[in-house]
């Protein structure tokens, strides 16, 4: 299926979820809206960028299994920020590091970058054009030293690259 059509289908599904109605008039209105938006977006940012990310059911299932770990890490990240920010001395020692994480799919790059941002003390700043070197801003040296081991990277490989 061609990519713009896929975008139309996804927008239409979103429309039906929002309107909570399957009456022909509303679905037709949604279809027209979806086509107009898909064309507009393709013109604005180019077809290359307007295409949706594709995920297989297997990846979705593995991602759901990964969710509890992610939520635990998000809570730990927030506690870490709370400890740092509410400490009167403001104990931070920021540094930007580069880590080499080779990945095959766009969706794994997105997943890894967002996971890094949500875990304690790290923030993805940039990904280079080969999509394998991540520039990461760390709030402390200990976090920066632990990043090259790539605990998250192995989780993401397991979830989206299926190995």
């Amino acid at each position, binding site marked *: 299926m061609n990519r713009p059509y896929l975008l139309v289908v996804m927008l239409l599904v979103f429309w039906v*979820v929002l309107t909570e109605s399957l009456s022909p008039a509303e679905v037709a209105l949604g279809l027209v809206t979806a086509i107009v938006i898909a064309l507009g977006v393709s013109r604005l940012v180019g077809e290359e960028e307007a295409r949706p990310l594709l995920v297989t059911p297997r990846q979705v299932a593995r991602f759901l299994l990964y969710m509890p770990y992610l939520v635990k890490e998000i*809570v730990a990240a*927030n506690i870490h*920020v709370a400890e740092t*920010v509410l400490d009167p001395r403001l104990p931070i020692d*920021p540094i930007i590091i580069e880590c080499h994480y080779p990945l095959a799919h766009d969706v794994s790059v997105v997943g890894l970058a967002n996971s890094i941002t949500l875990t304690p003390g790290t*923030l993805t*700043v940039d990904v280079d054009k080969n999509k394998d070197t991540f520039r990461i*801003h760390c709030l402390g040296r200990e976090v920066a030293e632990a990043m090259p081991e790539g605990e998250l990277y192995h989780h993401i490989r397991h979830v989206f690259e299926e190995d």
Partner: protein
Amino acid sequence: MLIEAILQAVTAVLVAVGLFFFLVGTVGVLRLPDFYSRTHAATKCDTLGAGSILLGLAVLGASRGDYTDGLKVLVIAVLVLLSSPTAAHALARAAFRTGLEPYTLPEARGGEDR
């Protein structure tokens, strides 16, 4: 009525946790020294704060019997979970590529004074 009371207590706890982390995020955004470290506080705290409050409200909706409303609130929570780190990443990348230098400790800069 017992179940309703339990669900309301769950809502209260989740909303309280969310408000606490929203406050932490605000304090972080006001206190931290540079853009990158502020983005840390803003992204993490906004994601968990909004997620926790929205989850609490979804539970409240379920306790009132509005299951579709509760589901829609969960959709909004997933939207925040996906969009907040992505927006932060786009912004940090734009800042980095326009040459904004990150703050480092004075002693890490070779002992030179600020």
